[in-house]
């Protein structure tokens, strides 16, 4: 009998502790309320943090209410659940912030034609569904300048996630930045095949460091590579969100997103009744992407050059993917004087000269 009671108590404790993990929901009052669906936790210090900081900024600037659901898996049922929860608490503007949410978002947008849907990093649109992303390759190029001037071994490591155009574009923009200031440098790429796995990210960085790389950058949502670099006395460039305190001994800067620029803008449009479904893809000029403040580890001449090119990109006198650009087999991919189109950049599947990747 005693055992049975104990077993029940034990079972109940487990149940209660599971249900204690809920999400906070604000009460709906205003006419407009924005709901966010996140792939990671709001404090991941990366992708999701960048979105959540922008959500709070949106609340502050427009005085509207928001709600969010975090840690939503990239499958239809989970996304549907999260979105209907948000709709239940009164959200009428829904932001889905991961590529894998694309198809469920399309289905939900059709199901709720009176609501506004905005999907980050996808390409499928409808009347009430727009897409948005940042031209992160612009700050990536700038961070390449930093890496190219910082390296002394001329071997730079790049911990990459998936072999998809978005990541390839980042590697290429970064390498173009490196090569511009340091034609002898090589960018060595390691693929983790995951967005977020701190152990793998760190192991990949360690493999690069063991081969003599002295600057590491990443397309990863965890700070693993920064830490690996700090442990080995090398330098690192982060991603998504400034991370000064994780690895103060290695962190130099990071290409970052500042989503509030877009969120405030689009929500204003919706509130004014001026919403048009569009595909938003802006760069440094809009402020939606930026290079995070450079720490003291960045050489002074690199800082000057970065500022110079940032200004040039902003006023349109410099374009990252303008010819002549060769791929890493030596073939000319972009002839001199030609700029790549958005379509070409969005389907990029080759590496520029100077990239070593399998």
């Amino acid at each position: 009998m005693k055992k049975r009671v104990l077993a029940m108590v034990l079972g109940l404790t487990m149940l209660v502790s599971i249900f204690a993990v809920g999400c906070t929901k604000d009460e709906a009052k205003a006419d407009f309320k924005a709901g966010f669906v996140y792939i990671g936790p709001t404090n991941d210090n990366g992708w999701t943090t960048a979105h959540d900081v922008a959500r709070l900024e949106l609340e502050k600037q427009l005085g509207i209410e928001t709600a969010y659901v975090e840690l939503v898996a990239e499958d239809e049922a989970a996304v549907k659940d999260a979105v209907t929860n948000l709709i239940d608490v009164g959200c009428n503007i829904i932001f889905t912030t991961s590529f894998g949410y694309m198809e469920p978002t399309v289905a939900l947008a059709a199901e709720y034609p009176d609501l506004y849907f905005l999907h980050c990093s996808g390409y499928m649109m409808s009347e009430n569904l727009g897409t948005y992303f940042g031209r992160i390759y612009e700050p990536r190029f700038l961070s390449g300048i930093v890496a190219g001037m910082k390296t002394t071994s001329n071997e730079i490591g790049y911990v990459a996630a998936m072999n998809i155009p978005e990541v390839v574009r980042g590697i290429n923009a970064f390498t173009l930045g490196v090569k511009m200031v340091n034609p002898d440098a090589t960018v060595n790429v390691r693929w983790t095949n995951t967005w977020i796995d701190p152990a793998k990210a760190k192991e990949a960085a360690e493999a690069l460091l063991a081969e003599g790389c002295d600057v590491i950058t990443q397309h990863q949502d965890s700070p693993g590579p920064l830490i690996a670099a700090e442990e080995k006395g090398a330098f690192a460039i982060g991603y998504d969100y400034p991370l000064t305190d994780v690895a103060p001994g290695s962190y130099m800067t990071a290409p970052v997103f500042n989503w509030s620029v877009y969120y405030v803008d689009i929500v204003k449009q919706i509130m004014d009744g001026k919403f048009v479904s569009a595909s938003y893809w802006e760069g440094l000029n809009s402020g939606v992407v930026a290079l995070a403040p450079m720490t003291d580890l960045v050489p002074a001449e690199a800082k000057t050059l970065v500022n110079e090119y940032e200004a040039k990109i902003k006023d349109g006198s410099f374009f990252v993917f303008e010819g002549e650009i060769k791929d890493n087999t030596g073939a000319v991919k972009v002839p001199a004087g030609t700029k790549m189109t958005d379509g070409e950049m969005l389907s990029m599947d080759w590496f520029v000269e100077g990239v070593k990747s399998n």
Partner: protein
Amino acid sequence: MNITLLLIAAIQAGTPLLLATLGETITEKAGHLNLGVEGMMLVGAVMGFVTAFETQNAGLAILVAMLAGLAASLIYAFLTVSLRTNQIVTGLALTIFGTGVSSFIGSSYIGEVVPANVKLFLKSSIEIPLLSKIPFVGDILFKQDILVYLSIIITVFFGIYLYKSRIGLNLKAVGENPYAADAVGINVSLYKYIHILIGGALSGLAGGYISLVYIPVWQDNVVAGKGWIAVALVIFVSWNPYKAILGSYFFGLLDIIGFRLQKFELHIPQDIIDMLPYIATIVVLIITSIRPSIKNNPPHWLGREYFREDR
């Protein structure tokens, strides 16, 4: 490729596997298959991290990581030994439970870093005098961090305990045939409890190694499947603690080799490399089943409940 650096890294990647494998071996020697290793490691990882973060005390963090793993295994021990629930189901439940607990407790610590003094204590490599001077071997084996040495000492200690001591023999009897063990006056339940708890503490320590030394920043699901590799490793090393040392380092090597192979443009997808530990386990299972040997067999009573009244 620098072989010395590769092997040093392999040992570090293999150390959490070694600790968890030892823990699971001890548990299985008592006849209990605990599939909750992943969960216990995560609980140990999160509690160790939180303790280190809040108290800045490395020793306390390690102790708490072990106690957390022990507490998680106590749930398992109570359910399977006293209530005689199905071991597979209970172990799986423990993994799911532990994953949830660690996410819950760790959610406000994501991205936080292990305090510098704790890192310094746990991560700095200690050179063993004389031995570290041996070329090649010295660099690899005798310039490691404190927990690497500790894990090897625990392994040797457990090996002696298991093969040379009376209590170790009793333990094996419990796992082989609890009825016989009971008949000669061994307290079967006590043996099971103690060894399941020791196993849990070692799993907790393995988790602590990951969150405090291996990746000293808190991330959700930091263990990332290493608990399952440990379960496979126990079979791979045929329940032998000494073989577990080599087996763990070998699996650690498989874990990290992929990124180093990418350099040679071999075009082996990372997914294939991720499968290697499991493929290796299957191969070993096949080999041992072709040439059965009493030495390589699992404890006879593994996974089965023991009802004293059934005699």
